[in-house]
């Protein structure tokens, strides 16, 4: 569901599958813990994600806040998930690709 790839400059969080409420609740502390500990930028890779719940959108908001301005982005979203971010008013979190 979630795996991490970290370098000195970047924490890449790779999600997969259905990020529903239960799945997010199981991983949010782990994700936010790694985000807070990260020294570089943070990216959420959603290429393998097929569904996101409100909880996940909140995790994105919390991550953006924790990482600081310009240091967090969401990458590789499919069109369905991209639309979710746009409707939620979170389009600014999506990286330009």
């Amino acid at each position, binding site marked *: 569901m979630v795996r991490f790839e970290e370098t000195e400059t970047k924490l890449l969080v790779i999600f997969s599958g259905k990020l529903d*409420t239960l799945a997010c609740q199981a991983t949010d502390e782990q994700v936010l813990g790694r985000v807070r500990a990260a020294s570089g930028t943070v990216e959420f890779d959603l290429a393998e994600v097929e*569904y*996101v719940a*409100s909880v996940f*959108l909140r995790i994105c908001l919390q991550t953006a806040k924790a990482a600081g301005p310009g240091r967090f982005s969401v990458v590789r979203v499919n069109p*369905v*998930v991209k639309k*979710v971010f746009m*409707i939620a*008013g979170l389009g600014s979190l999506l990286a330009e690709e």
Partner: protein
Amino acid sequence: MDMESKRFDVEEVMERAALAAAVFSQLDQEHTDRIVRAAYLAGFNARVRLAKMACEETGLGIWQDKVIKNVLATQLVYEDIKDEKTVGVIGEDHERGIVEIAQPLGPILAVAPVTNPTSTVMFKILIALKTRNPILIRPHNRAIRCSSEAARILYEAALGEDAPEDCVQWLGNTSREETHALMSHKRLALILATGGTGLVKSAYSSGTPAIGVGAGNVPVYIERSADIPFAVKQILISKTFDNGTVCASEQAVVTERALTGQVMAEFQRRGAYFLNEEETRKVEAVAFDREQGVMSMDVVGQPAAHIARLAGIEAPSDVTLLIAPQKKVGKGYPLSSEILAPILAYYVVEGLPEAINLCIELNYHGGIGHTVSIFSNDEEVIRQFAAAMNAGRILVNTPSSQGAVGAIYNRLAPSLTLGCGTGGKNITTDNITARHLLNIQRIARRRVNEELELFDKSLYLDESVDAAAVEKLYHRNR
């Protein structure tokens, strides 16, 4: 903190609604339908408790009748919408090359009235869920507990089927400023405004698209071909329903001189009480607020016996309805206006033309576009009557309270939000339902207009060629 004094942050509420809208956009039809069914079942199963709560909190109406309203709002609405396609492709016309795709609108603000505080809430939630729109319930300030409870019950059931978090939110006591801030919020997609004229006007002035309702002032014409005992019985069923709180309930009976004896006798046989002139003045004084020019809240949803006591009239203790004979319609005749209580104005006319003219006056006296009613077995008369009225619903041989809301006495869509057309300052005369809460996208495939293709378009540039000539050439060789 109790529900009434609970405050809320408009920005936070709207952000939650926006997230819910985003998540909703991913749901397919099957998942959406499971959510709607769960919400309907929970609402239906709570119908009696919610009806009792509504009566207790508002002091209006009859709980047994509010149960029926709750049944309409849940079971009958569900039966009406359950098979409707509301996600993805909802229509295909190969010949015209058009494919219709349903998209949700986004967050909806639903204003609920004090007269139907649980049924309207459940109805609006069901049609919002069916169309994948998050909904914010703004209860009437006198019905916060019961409206919130109805919303909570449906929301929790929806969550049980993995509905988006915050797809239903309900607000506590809402100030005018907060209501305005919500209504004009940039992230709000639509206002479903069921309530008083002022509130509906605020919704329309907010800059956000709104579906409002107009006020009613329903005349019912008992015509000479009518089955009089049947007609009177139906009117009583309607006008006493929930102590007259339905905006589509009859407000004035119009009948012909030749029939009035029988009509009056039927009403009296069924417990109605005809007021004399002095008693009429007394009822006017308690039922109508002359300063505001509207019905008095003291009588709304109260039983006839209570209103009689309030007015100081010695009516029988089991009186079902107070009937006030009237001569004219207008400001000088308060009971010719809408009064949501078991009080009826009563007019006697000489024949059909006078009856229709009087019904037009009543219709235009505060009830344009809403509902009118006729009891008749003469198809020609029914058509003449209908053509003369400005009403979204022209009900025939039907109790108008139950008839206008659909699904019980006719096949109108079951609804607790009745459009009143442009006459009532509304966008539609429809009974509002799920299909009104969708944006329909149309894929339009190339289908060349053959007549235009074959037409010599250079003729458009020639000023000497007039419309008649173009029309002839345009349709040539068809």
